[in-house]
């Protein structure tokens, strides 16, 4: 504070902000190096300019994949249902995010069908059923313990028959280092293609915003098993900053689509790059 010129102290503070937001050492060094370069070029750079540059640099890591930032909840226009398969490790907020997303799509006048693909965790189907009732959308489910691939198959069949616009398929939470469970996910994905050849159209990986560097490994392994195509970051209503997605988005070229900011039905937002970056500095 009070500094007008960028020196080592300022850069140190910057490093602290990034590291304490879970941005990670590698990405932080990348950002700091780029800023040092610019400082070297422009010796009279002040801290005010620095803030702008910093935001640009971070946003730059996100921007390549987050071009044309969506500002609303939309799905691409197409024939037949748009299928979103939701995956992630245990307890990150998959089921809740599906409930909130169903609400948004329904408000847009879209016909939504939920698939209760978590047949494993205690009362997982009941939880999704409550969300379906709350939001007022269809749900396809089977008994606990049944084959999730079979639930996915049923869900798509039903969605096609009902002429639905969107399918949101829930899956059981699983740690990415469990080979059998990851193979199961690949199978669930494959089965859907028997009904809709290019389904799922989106594989959304849900990351808990308070997760640290392990999120990298999550992104890597889920991508290997299911070709993740978008990210949702949850629980950003707390004090965690969710900075790890910057590195992930940069490294894996996966766009961040939504953020979760609470447990209520309205607590889902379309990801906004500059607001997200701003949240690091307040």
């Amino acid at each position, binding site marked *: 504070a009070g500094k007008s010129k960028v020196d080592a102290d300022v850069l140190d503070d910057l490093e602290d902000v990034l590291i304490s937001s879970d941005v990670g050492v590698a990405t932080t060094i990348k950002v700091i190096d780029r800023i040092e370069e610019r400082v070297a070029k422009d010796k009279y750079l002040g801290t005010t300019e620095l803030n702008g540059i910093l935001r640009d640099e971070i946003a730059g890591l996100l921007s390549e994949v987050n071009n044309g930032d969506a500002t609303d909840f939309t799905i691409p226009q197409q024939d037949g249902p748009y299928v979103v398969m939701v995956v992630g490790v245990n*307890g990150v907020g998959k089921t809740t995010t599906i409930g909130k997303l169903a609400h948004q799509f329904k408000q847009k006048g879209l016909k939504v069908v939920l698939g209760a693909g978590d047949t494993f965790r205690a009362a997982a189907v*009941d939880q999704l059923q409550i969300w379906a009732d709350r939001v007022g959308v269809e749900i396809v489910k089977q008994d606990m313990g049944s084959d999730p691939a079979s639930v996915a198959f049923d869900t798509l069949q039903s969605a096609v028959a009902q002429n639905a616009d969107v399918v949101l398929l829930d899956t059981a939470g699983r740690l990415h280092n469990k080979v059998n469970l990851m193979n199961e996910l690949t199978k669930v994905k494959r089965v859907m293609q028997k009904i809709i050849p290019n389904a799922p159209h989106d594989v959304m990986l849900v990351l808990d915003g*308070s997760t640290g560097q392990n999120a990298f490994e999550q992104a890597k392994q889920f991508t290997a098993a299911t070709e993740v195509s978008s990210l949702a970051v949850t629980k950003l209503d707390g004090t965690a900053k969710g900075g790890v997605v910057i590195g992930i988005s940069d490294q894996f070229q996966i766009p961040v689509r939504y953020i979760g900011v609470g447990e209520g039905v309205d607590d889902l937002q379309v990801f906004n790059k500059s607001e997200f970056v701003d949240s690091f500095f307040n």
Partner: protein
Amino acid sequence: MFDNLTDKLDKAMHVLKGHGSITEVNVADTLKEIRRALVDADVNYKIAKEFTSRAKEKALGQGVLTTLKPGQLLTKIVKDELTELMGGDVTGLNLTGNPTVILMSGLQGSGKTTFSGKLANFLKTKKSKRPLLVACDIYRPAAIDQLHVVGESVGVEVYSNREEKDPVKISEAAISHAKQNGFNVVIIDTAGRLAVDEQMMTEIANVHAAVKPQETLFVVDSMTGQDAVNTAKAFNERLNFDGVILTKLDGDTRGGAALSIKSVVDKPIKFIGTGEKMEAIDVFYPSRMADRILGM
């Protein structure tokens, strides 16, 4: 990570030695590597800083400047220091209450409900107790059902009241129920909450004040990053909890949050969760956790 680090340190110091002697500056540079490794393992960056400067003092004190294998010595010092920090007295659960009341607390999705079931099963099968599980999460969709499924799977009764919306009343009624029916441990599952949610923090503080638990446990996801210290501090300020439960250690996270939390609140880590099944519970070993954080 740390296996490589040992090599790296040895190499770095060796090269330096060729050019004369290892200086304090060289040691500081090397410790920077260690600090980075700790931050990569999700140790809070401030704690990593403090930790490495302490390790530096030790290293200089133990003559790392003149040893033949400085990398090895440094690694050993770091590992020992880490183990000591995470250790302390191994305290089990205080089960002397009549009944003993155990209150679960933590963020959303950290593993409270699952751990409540595991703990009930552990106390029943390993400690010959008669536990009662209590459903005090009145918010999350199907939270009560979830606890009932969990309770049934381990053969432990679950007390719930779907009409009652006050967790204080539910837990008090559950304790009376336990006294009347010969249950000697009462495990209260609560809703997940954020530390910044004033209303929800007051709610659990009220439950805590009303039931005066022998054990208040803070359940934390071992994949948590830098925010772990804020959350642990805030929960501790409100509940002065007795111990920490680290869940989801069956993953491949390094779990640096364990060190951060221990440093910040100085409360023992009592159990770890190592899977979704009811048997996946283990006591906490500081030295294993140190190895894990260091990637050894």
